[in-house]
C-alpha cells in the first residue's frame, strides 16, 4: 500500500493540533483512506501501551550522587561567598548606583559631624554641668558683645553692692549715669527677648532679675533716695545675682 500524501496530518489530528475546519476535512479524508486509518490505529495503540508505561526509577544512591555533584558544582560555595563580598565592594565602591551614592553621602556626613564634635569641641547648645546654658547658646548675639554686656553689668552691680548709700552719694549718682549711658537696661531687654524666642527659661529668669534691678537703679531720681538704693542692694544679695553673672562670664571665657 502506498503512503498517503497526508500521512503526517494523522499525527496532527491524533494530538489534537488541528484547527476545527482542518479536523473536519481530515475526518472526511479518513473515511476513504485505508492508510491513514491504519496509521491512526497505530497511534492509538501506541498511546494505549504507553499509558501503562512507567519509567524505571534510578538507583537511590546514583540519584543522590548526581544531585550532590550538581550541587557542589553549581550551588554557591565558600569561594563564591568571597565573590559575593567582591561583588558588594564593587557595587558599593567601584560602580555605585544613585541609591548607594546617597547612602554613602549620608554616612560621610554623619561621620564628619561625629569627628567634628570630637576634634573641634562641643557644640554651642551643650549644657554646662552647673545647669546654665553655655554663653551665647540661646542668644543670637556675638559672644564678644555678650561678654561686654556681662562685664559692664557686673561692674555696675558690683559698685551697687559695695557702695555706702550714705557716704558715697556722689558715686551713686555717677553709677546711675553710667548705667544709663551704657544702655544696660535696653541691652538687657533685647537679650531677654532673644532668650524668650529660644525659650531659655534660666536665661530669661536671670535677665529679668538684672532688668528689674537696673530699672530701679536708673529710676532713682536723687542719690538722696537712700531707702531705694538699700532695697536694690538687698535684692542683689538675695538673688545671688553677681554670682550668677560671674559664673556665666567664666563659662564664656
Amino acid at each position: 500500500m502506498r503512503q498517503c500524501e497526508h500521512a503526517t496530518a494523522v499525527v496532527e489530528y491524533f494530538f489534537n493540533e488541528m484547527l476545527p475546519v482542518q479536523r473536519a476535512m481530515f475526518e472526511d479524508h479518513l473515511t476513504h483512506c485505508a492508510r491513514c486509518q491504519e496509521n491512526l490505529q497505530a497511534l492509538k495503540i501506541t498511546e494505549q501501551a504507553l499509558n501503562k508505561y512507567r519509567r524505571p526509577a534510578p538507583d537511590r544512591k546514583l540519584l543522590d550522587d548526581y544531585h550532590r555533584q550538581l550541587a557542589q558544582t553549581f550551588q554557591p560555595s565558600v569561594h563564591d561567598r568571597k565573590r559575593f563580598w567582591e561583588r558588594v565592594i564593587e557595587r558599593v565602591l567601584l560602580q555605585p548606583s544613585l541609591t548607594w551614592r546617597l547612602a554613602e553621602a549620608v554616612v560621610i556626613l554623619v561621620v564628619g559631624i561625629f569627628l567634628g564634635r570630637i576634634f573641634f569641641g562641643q557644640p554651642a547648645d551643650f549644657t554646662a554641668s552647673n545647669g546654665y546654658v553655655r554663653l551665647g547658646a540661646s542668644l543670637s548675639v556675638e559672644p564678644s558683645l555678650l561678654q561686654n554686656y556681662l562685664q559692664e553689668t557686673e561692674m555696675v552691680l558690683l559698685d551697687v553692692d559695695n557702695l555706702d548709700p550714705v557716704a558715697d552719694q556722689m558715686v551713686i549718682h555717677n553709677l546711675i549715669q553710667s548705667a544709663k549711658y551704657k544702655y544696660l537696661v535696653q541691652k538687657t531687654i533685647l537679650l531677654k527677648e532673644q532668650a524668650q524666642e529660644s525659650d531659655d527659661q534660666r536665661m530669661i529668669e536671670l535677665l529679668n532679675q538684672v532688668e528689674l534691678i537696673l530699672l530701679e537703679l536708673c529710676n532713682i531720681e536723687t542719690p538722696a533716695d537712700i531707702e531705694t538704693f538699700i532695697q536694690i542692694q538687698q535684692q542683689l544679695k538675695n538673688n545671688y545675682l553677681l554670682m550668677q553673672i560671674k559664673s556665666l562670664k567664666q563659662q564664656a571665657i
Partner: protein
Amino acid sequence: MLNGGSVSAVNRSESAMDDPDRKLVAQAKQGDRQAFGKLVKKYQNKVLYLAFDLIGNYVDAQDVAQNVFLQAFRNIAYFRDEATFSTWLYRITTNAAIDFQRSQKRRRAVFMDQTPRDKEFTSAWEHVIDPDAAIANKVEQADLKELISHNVAQLSPQQRAAFVLKYFHDQSTDAIAKILGCDPVTVRGHLLRAILKLRKKLKDER
C-alpha cells in the same frame, strides 16, 4: 492543505515572554551562580530522565546530564529569547545524548543485536501493540519498561528524540521542532515513522 496552519502554530507557539524562568535566566546571564544553581535544581531530574529515555541507562545518563548543565552554564550568555529555557535545555540534552550514542556506536551495535532475551521483549511488545492481543493488560509492568526502552533504543536518533519528547516528556510538536531544530511537519513525520517502524518490526518478528 491538511498539513497547513495548525493549532500548534496558532496556540502553542512558545514565547520567551511567558518563560517562568525568565528572571533566573537573566540573573544567570549576569554571572549569578546562585540563580543558575536554582535552575539546575529545578531541571536536574527532568534532564536526567530525558537523557535516560534517549540513552537507556542511568549511569551514562547521569554523565550526560552533568555535561548538559556544564554546557548550559558556559553558554547561557548566548541563550536567546527565541525559546523558553526548558526548550533550550532539552535541546542541549537531546544533542548531548545523540552525540554520546554516536561515540558509543560500536558498543551500541553489539547491544542492538537480537538476543534471545530481546526476542522475548519483542514478543511482549507485540502483545501490547497488537489490537488483537487481548493479553495486553496482563503484561507485567517490569517487562513493559524494558520492552519499551529496548524498542525505542532501536529507532533512529531523530525519531527516538521526537518519540521520547512527545510521549515521555509531554512536549508540544512546536517545542519538539525547536529542540530538534527542524520543522513541525518534519517532527510529525519522525513520530509517525517511529510508530510505524516499531509496529512493523514487531510484525516481522512474529
